[in-house]
């Protein structure tokens, strides 16, 4: 009996040890099969959870075609940096990862392969989509996106206006305030809630904040700075005031409103305007979604600065592919081949356009069915100037967070605009100092 008991104990111990050893990522299973016949393998650490399934499918298709195993692992929303940090230190690190622009690159440049002379670089439609550090090209943008104010045209017509009526900040303000004045009669509000919860506040602390930065850069003719002056802060205040005072809810409640709240309000026809980007297309149009292409339009975010008649959507990228230079030689080659295949082959370009809804800045790109993307192209064709994405030059994630925190307090009335201005201007300088310290 005792012996049997001892045996049982030992057995359970061994089992528990085996269980510990079995703690490998499930994705590794993909490495089986033909792995032995192929020269290298690809490990892609994907940033966008929305496209996780599409990437998995594309990876599978590539493996079937070439025999090269491709592992796709997607970091949970908001945890990309952490995941990358721990994954890259492992013995089998990601061979393909991404950074969000110059500031992100500063942290990872020691791990980025110089892509000069690679096949994928020659496929880029414009040199501006290459992320450079000195002479070396360390990153390549793989998707271009646009954002602006999404308009529910049906509701706007009910209020007695059309998209053509809004061509400046003054127009937008007039329409929004008129809708607010008749809110009870119309049954809907002007803007969906400008939620300041973490799932939504990036729309204001990052995307909206891009506009005052853009116009300041334009005035000075620069592309980045270590000391922002905040010359367009008054315009930033004006547009943010417009958002919070003409919204579905009381400004005091915004602190706890989430991205889903805002989206649902727009979907349910409770608001005419919704600030978001081309990536939201899939949430609004399609099977089981309330809208068709005819119901929607995207207009530029007017803040009353620059030449508003010529202002386009905010178009740019913060997604750059980087190849890990510390990976094995054959894996690096396999990764370069995979990237090239994604943007040149029929299957790859098709999947990126239709499955992932991406507009890719490569020569073989297939046209995307995304309405907002088409609108951006139309506006550019009509001679309007797209507003570039300058938030990759924001000094740090912390700068955005401090700004977001100040905006939240301002919206709720517990903080003042001075705090926001200070987070914007002084925070910029101190964060840049810390970045280089």
């Amino acid at each position, binding site marked *: 009996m005792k012996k049997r008991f001892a045996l049982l104990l030992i057995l359970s*111990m061994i089992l528990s040890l085996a269980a510990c050893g079995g703690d490998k990522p499930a994705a590794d299973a993909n490495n089986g099969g033909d792995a032995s016949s192929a020269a290298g393998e690809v490990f892609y650490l994907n940033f966008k959870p929305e496209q996780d399934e599409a990437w998995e499918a594309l990876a599978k298709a590539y493996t079937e075609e070439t025999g090269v195993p491709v592992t796709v692992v997607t970091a949970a929303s908001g945890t990309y940096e952490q995941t990358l940090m721990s994954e890259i230190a492992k013995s089998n690190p990601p061979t393909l990862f991404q950074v969000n622009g110059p500031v992100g690159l500063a942290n990872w440049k020691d*791990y980025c392969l110089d892509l000069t002379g690679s096949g994928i670089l020659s496929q880029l439609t414009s040199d501006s989509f290459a992320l450079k550090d000195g002479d070396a090209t360390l990153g390549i943008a793989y998707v271009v996106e646009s954002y602006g104010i999404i308009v529910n045209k049906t509701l706007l017509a009910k209020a007695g206006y059309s998209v053509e009526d809004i061509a400046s900040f003054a127009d937008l303000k007039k329409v929004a305030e008129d809708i607010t004045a008749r809110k009870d009669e119309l049954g809907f509000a002007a803007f969906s809630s400008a939620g300041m919860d973490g799932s939504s506040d990036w729309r204001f602390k990052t995307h909206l904040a891009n506009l005052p930065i853009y116009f300041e850069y334009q005035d000075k003719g620069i592309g980045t700075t270590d000391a922002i002056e905040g010359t367009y802060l008054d315009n930033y205040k004006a547009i943010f005031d417009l958002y919070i005072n003409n919204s579905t809810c009381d400004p005091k409640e915004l602190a706890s409103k989430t991205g889903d709240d805002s989206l649902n309000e727009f979907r349910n026809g409770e608001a005419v305007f919704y600030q978001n980007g081309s990536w939201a297309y899939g949430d609004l149009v399609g099977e089981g979604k309330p809208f068709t292409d005819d119901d929607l339009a995207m207009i530029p975010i007017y803040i009353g600065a620059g030449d508003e008649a010529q202002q386009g959507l905010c178009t740019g990228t913060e997604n750059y592919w980087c190849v890990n230079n510390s990976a094995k030689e054959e894996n690096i080659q396999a990764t370069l081949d995979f990237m090239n295949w994604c943007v040149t082959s029929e299957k790859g370009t098709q999947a990126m356009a239709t499955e992932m809804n991406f507009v890719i800045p490569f020569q073989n790109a297939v046209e995307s069915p995304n309405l907002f993307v088409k609108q951006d192209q139309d506006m550019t064709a009509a001679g309007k100037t797209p507003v570039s994405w300058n938030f990759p030059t924001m000094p740090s994630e912390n700068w955005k967070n401090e700004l977001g925190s100040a905006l939240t*307090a301002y919206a709720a009335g517990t903080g003042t605009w001075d705090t926001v201005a200070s987070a914007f201007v002084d925070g910029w300088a101190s964060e840049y100092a810390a970045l280089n310290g």
Partner: protein
Amino acid sequence: MEKAIRKYWPVFVLPTLAAFLIGFVWPFLQGLYLSFCKFVTINNATFNGLKNYIFALTEADFLHSFGFTVLFTVVSSACINVAALAIALALTREIKGTNLFRSVFFMPNLIGGIVLGYIWNILLNCVLTLLGKPLMNLYAPYGFIGLLILMCWQQIGYMMIIYIAGLQSIPGDYLEAARIDGATERQIFWKVKLPNLMPSITICAFLTLTNGFKLFDQNLALTGGEPAHQTEMLALNIYQTFYGRSGPQWKGYGQAKAVLFCILVIAISMIQLRATRSKEVQQ
């Protein structure tokens, strides 16, 4: 059985020892070394001397979070222990349904911190909205009170179980003798029950103090340190320094803070254990 143990002890000791060395001692030493370094990943650290510690000890946010943590720990430990003991006393009086009450009070402890944090976040923010008051992540005092309510709700049940066990282990003849000698209920509590409860108090004080000090999940989920880091506790501050910032120097700062934090927690636990141990009586 004893013979078998003598023969097979390595089988039982070695796996645990190995796990302890690999999973605790080695990472701890590595962490100690990294706290003097700048690094992006732990494989390529460059030595940075004492700069990390100097930064950590002069950063305003870190010092504020230290003050906030101490305040929270003291207040929450006091509230939790007093309430848990009171409930334990009530539930050892052999009233009907005691077992049901014990289970119900214990149950909150079974839910994870993050989940609790989000549930209470919704709940308390709704109440504040109805009252027309600023939300927890906008007004630090409400954030503090929210955290306190959450921690009390979660921990009182657990501490209560320990106190009940302590109360039940007091020999009945002590209480009987006290009653025969004419002691009032109050005297029995202060002179007989409490001294005999000291071992339980030691354990509970230790648990509540360290739990309060190391609080992370609930802090992250309930207020996230808002507004402007005012409700950020030490563990969350370290996390934000390490993960919320990019750049090799921040990893070093975070690591240095973590080492300081570790020393602090050990020191406080040691002092507390010594202080309460000395009051324990032998039965």
